[in-house]
């Protein structure tokens, strides 16, 4: 049972949630709420936006300013929210398809702008809500309903994509490290710029069933066995890291000014 201060952030009247028993999304939601609680955030000044998919139903269960947008567009909505009222804490939760397929363009441009939004990508390597279709993070060879002979498209590394596009805080954890999830989400929210937190999670229902990870615990062990801390990974060869998840803080740059602060200077310049 979550702590009382965490429970205060829940709209328990809208439970039960839509997630399957054993889904990893609850671990991420709990970590995010612990992070918000420990930062002393005011739910009335906290916006949680999302797109479409299983992960994107999360804001509905959170008692704050919640914005369930259209598929792939949540970061563009969130950009309008943040630029319009920079005092708000804005967190955007997305799935892998939402973030890197239909919303890929908004994602790289939010990174480029370095706008003060914390983007949490819940990567379960599949489109779960629609029944298990291949996503841009489905591993080559994995079975999906739209890749019945195994996926052939090379997957995205969302963290590398974010770093390449200009995000200034990038971190990864898996649902096997709930404490680290909380820590990096907390840092992501505190970061004055665009932060990307990728959390590897699972869809045992739609992905696991077809890929030998049908029980929730199979997935927990899978991630636990394949997680490598960044400091250790830095000393490993690329082939040693094949199939591993490098976790921890992957990238941080405090020298880039946050977007809405830059726009405040535009206002100052235009007003003269």
């Amino acid at each position, binding site marked *: 049972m979550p702590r009382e201060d965490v429970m205060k952030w829940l709209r328990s009247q809208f439970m039960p949630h839509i997630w399957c028993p054993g889904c990893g999304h609850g671990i991420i939601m709990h970590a995010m709420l612990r992070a918000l609680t420990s930062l002393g955030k005011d739910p009335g000044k906290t916006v949680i936006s999302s797109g479409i998919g299983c992960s994107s139903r999360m804001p509905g269960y959170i008692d704050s300013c919640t914005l369930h947008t259209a598929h792939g*567009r949540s970061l563009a909505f969130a950009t309008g929210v943040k630029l319009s009222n920079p005092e708000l804490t804005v967190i955007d939760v997305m799935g892998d398809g939402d973030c890197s397929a239909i919303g890929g363009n908004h994602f790289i441009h939010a990174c480029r702008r370095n706008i003060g939004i914390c983007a949490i990508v819940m990567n379960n390597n599949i489109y779960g809500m629609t029944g298990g279709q291949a996503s841009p993070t489905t591993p080559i060879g994995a079975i999906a309903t739209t890749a019945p002979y195994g996926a052939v498209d090379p997957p995205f590394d969302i963290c590398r994509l974010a770093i390449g596009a200009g995000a200034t805080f990038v971190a990864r954890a898996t649902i096997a490290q709930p404490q680290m999830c909380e820590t990096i989400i907390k840092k992501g929210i505190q970061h004055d710029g665009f932060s990307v937190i990728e959390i590897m999670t699972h869809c045992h229902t739609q992905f696991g069933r077809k890929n030998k990870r049908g029980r929730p615990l199979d997935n927990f062990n899978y991630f636990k066995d394949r997680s490598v801390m960044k400091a250790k990974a830095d000393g490993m060869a690329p082939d040693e890291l094949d199939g591993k998840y490098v976790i921890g803080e992957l990238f941080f740059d405090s020298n880039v000014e946050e977007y809405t602060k830059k726009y405040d200077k535009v206002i100052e310049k235009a007003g003269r």
Partner: protein
Amino acid sequence: MPRAEFWQGNKAIAMGGIDAGCRFFGGYPITPSTEIAEVMAEELPKLGGRFIQMEDEIGGIAATIGASITGRKAMTGTSGPGFSLKQELLGYGYIAEIPFVCVDVQRGGPSTGLPTKVSQGDVMQARWGTHGDHATIAYAPSSVQECYDLTVKAFNASERFRQPVLILSDEVVGHMRERIVIPDACSLEITDRKKPSVPPDQFIPYLADPCDDIPPMASFGDGYHWHVTGLTSNDWGFPTNNAADIDRKITRIIDKVEKRRSEVVEYAAEGCEDAEILVVSFGCVSRSALRAVRELRSRGAKVGHFRPITIWPFADRELEDIVKASRVKHVIVPELNMGQMFLEIDRAIHGHCETHSKTLLNGELFKPAQIISYIEEVA
């Protein structure tokens, strides 16, 4: 003090928006609407407003909706393919009941079509472009003055009815320069959205006031916690599969405008009292049509002109009343499409007289002489 300016239509739309209280613009460059974004980029920060050039047309409308939810009056503008791209999120605005203004400066299509040439091909897209049912409010300016005045009205309507409102301009009106009189700022009638009158713990975000079918709207950041979604939702804003809740929600978002359509519908009629031939046109075409009608009237012909100012809701009852009450034998409808407005007119007139559709799809504007010849054909 009112002041005179010599502006193009696109600038008048931007300035009308600003004077109506717009303080956010989310856009993407596209001909022939780009000047709206350019003026906004320059003018908004002077007033503490915010402009953002997004990565695409969808991003532009998404950011606009996000800004509106924080309480700012917000606007986006586009043309042709950009209007097609914005359709999904226009639907989001209708169902989530988010006020904002979306301008479409029409150009030739389909697809990339004629970026620099005029068309009126988006009449039906403006009405039915997004999937699902909703009420549409769309103003069609025919002069630079109207670009300004109708943008103010569009903001007022969007704030009043809590939904997106469209400006259906066109390339000719958008790029035409003419004299415009800007009213004194304090003489403008400005409508602001209804705010909740209950404290946050008693706020039910989509509970409509029975008097107007519209729920008061809180802003993110002012202490109210609420959920916004594009899913069909109940009064709590939470997704529902309950048939009665679904029916009530969708019926209400249509009724809130349709029940009050007579307060929204606007048109301009000239010479209709004694007309035997009536020309119905809107936007840039009405410039040519009015000149033709006035010229023939000066020669004693019984010709009139009817111009819908709100293209949606369409002035069908008003047009029918005019046709029934007068001696109109022929209605001629010149438009820069294959007869999109003609269908509405033919439906409205209910066979009271003969109707004639005149279409032009070559990227040019009807000349007054062409319209005179259409009138003479049936006279």
